């Protein structure tokens, strides 16, 4: 008895009940397809969050003012000295300190405004104009598309120059080249030094409705010389952000004369920790999706067991005939096992195909990213399901006495 014959009998058995075989295969197909697709969607959403945060700059820390929260007011009531200090240029400069803040690479003070820009009759309200230092661009991951960035000289001499985002550029200049042109920002003429590469929109905000000018210039003509709205800090590496955050906190706490118990009047936002939080969220999401998919795979497996049980019961007479003609137990077992494994392997292969096709589409706004391990795993599991769930009824069939099996109607 050769393996080829076992295979032939198994194939004939499957063909004899095409609809049933097809439905069982479908169960496994859905299970395997779901595993691959859902894991890919989870992975894709993780990648998407990562990309969004990368756009902002992963080594980025943002220091902003925090008007007295609940803790501040409580401490005021108990008479402790606490007030909301301004973030000053001196605060910003104090953060670049190789001794007290070894993990800080650079800083850029930020003031913001939302002025109206006009050029040749076209008007555009810039959602955010940032007055800052050149270091801002690297810290926040902006690339220059055309022209050049603002320079230290521009800052020192308070030159009226501006670098504009793609949305601003298109609104004011259309297809014309904006570099070197004069735009009126709240009626003050600025020279366009360069344009920024598009970042695209993240959520509802248009990241490209944006412009950068020297800090001093914006303070002169737009925001005044009050508190900074932000200090942007670049940590030395993505791994150093937490250390940098602690250093910034301790420097500013002492500069603002805050007691250890008082709630601080500033806030340090750490992009890296945001990333960690969101990636753990997407990880949970992926695991959840995977679990749902695994359950559907298991259900498919139970489907195979059920079908094999029915098949074996239905074909008990056939088993009796085969045994009476000299089929050893192994041949019977082999035939039914091969049937079960063939069902699950065909289902698995089609499931992989379906999963791969599914991942070519955007699912719920997420571009799925195929995880090769999930394909291997799903396929292996489907084969094992066939073996495992098929072996039980097959073994039961193979153990029958020929006459017992033949009497079965």
């Amino acid at each position, binding site marked *: *008895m050769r393996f080829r014959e076992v295979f032939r009998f198994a194939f004939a058995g499957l063909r*004899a009940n095409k609809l049933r075989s097809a439905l069982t295969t479908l169960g496994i197909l859905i299970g395997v397809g779901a595993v691959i697709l859902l894991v890919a969607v989870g992975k894709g959403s993780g990648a998407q969050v990562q990309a969004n945060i990368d756009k902002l700059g992963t080594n980025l820390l943002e220091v902003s003012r925090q008007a007295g929260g609940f803790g501040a007011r409580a401490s005021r009531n108990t008479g402790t000295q606490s007030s909301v200090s301004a973030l000053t240029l001196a605060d910003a400069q104090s953060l670049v300190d190789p001794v007290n803040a070894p993990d800080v690479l650079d800083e850029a003070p930020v003031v913001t405004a939302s002025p109206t820009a006009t050029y040749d009759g076209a008007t555009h309200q810039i959602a955010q104009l940032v007055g800052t230092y050149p270091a801002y661009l690297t810290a926040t991951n902006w690339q220059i598309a055309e022209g050049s960035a603002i320079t230290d000289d521009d800052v020192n001499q308070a030159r009226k120059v501006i670098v504009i985002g793609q949305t601003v550029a298109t609104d004011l200049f259309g297809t014309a080249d904006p570099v070197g042109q004069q735009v009126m920002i709240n009626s003050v003429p600025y020279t366009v030094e360069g344009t920024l590469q598009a970042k695209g929109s993240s959520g509802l905000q248009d990241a490209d409705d944006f412009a950068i000018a020297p800090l001093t210039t914006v303070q002169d003509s737009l925001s005044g010389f009050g508190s900074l709205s932000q200090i942007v800090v670049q940590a030395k590496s993505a791994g150093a952000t937490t250390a940098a955050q602690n250093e910034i906190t301790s420097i500013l706490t002492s500069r603002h004369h805050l007691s250890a118990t008082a709630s601080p009047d500033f806030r340090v936002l750490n992009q890296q920790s945001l990333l960690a939080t969101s990636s753990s969220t997407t990880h949970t999401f992926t695991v959840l999706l995977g679990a749902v998919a695994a359950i559907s795979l298991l259900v498919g497996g139970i489907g195979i067991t059920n079908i094999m049980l029915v098949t074996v019961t239905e074909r008990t007479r056939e088993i009796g*005939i085969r045994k*009476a*003609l*000299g*089929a050893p137990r192994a041949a019977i077992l082999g035939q039914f096992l091969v049937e079960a494994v063939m069902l699950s392997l065909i289902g698995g292969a089609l499931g992989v195909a379906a999963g791969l096709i599914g991942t070519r589409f955007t699912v719920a706004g997420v571009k799925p990213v195929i995880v090769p391990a999930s394909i291997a795993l799903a396929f292996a599991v489907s084969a094992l399901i066939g073996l495992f769930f098929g072996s039980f009824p097959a073994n039961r069939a193979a153990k029958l006495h*020929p*006459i017992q099996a*033949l009497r079965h109607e």
Partner: protein
Amino acid sequence: MGTQRPVIELTDIRKTYGMDGNAVHALRGVSLTVPTGDYVAIMGASGSGKSTLMNIIGCLDVPTTGRYLLDDVEVEHLSDRQLALVRNRKIGFVFQSFNLLPRTTALDNVELPLVYAGVGTTERRKRARAALELVGLSERMHHKPQELSGGQQQRVAVARALVTAPSLILADEPTGNLDSTSSSDVMALFDRLHRAGRTIVLITHEHDIAEHAERAIRLMDGQIVSDERNGERGWISEQHTVRHGSAR
């Protein structure tokens, strides 16, 4: 006859179906010896235990008690693998109810025992065709059992039993569904196999079929009530045959 080695040696075989309350005693102590080359007809009323006995002889069923030696080997002690080999190589069994595989052509049905014997495809085809030709079914070999008449199915079953060239042929009413022409064709086949030295045991209700055999055993209520040998002067009780056996 006494010089022949026995193929089948049954000692006090009993078979009981069911439990104490409604137990059916299908065989109540059957002892029987069949020497090599014998041609035995088993007769008896319906329900007398003929098929039960035949199934036990064919290693398809096990007796409740009793000893069964097949070619001097105790069947009870054979493993599943060895039993499969015995059923495949040594015995050709024709079932009362044919037991052909449904949705499978006559040719494939006849080939089946050869598949389990490990015979290659072309050789298998050749032998299965030859066996079907022997029973006069060459034109029907690509038909499935449900497309064949009862008699044709019976002949497929006979072909399947003969295809492995077994030394022991067990046939449970092989002519039960055949008209007199086909019936005598099949019996001519058995006679030829007998002359070729095969051991044949067949069950029949009909006396003219039993006439082909050399020995007739009558069962009644699970017991052997007569055992006669067909001699020149008609049927003689086996006891006499044993006494005068050497004279034959």
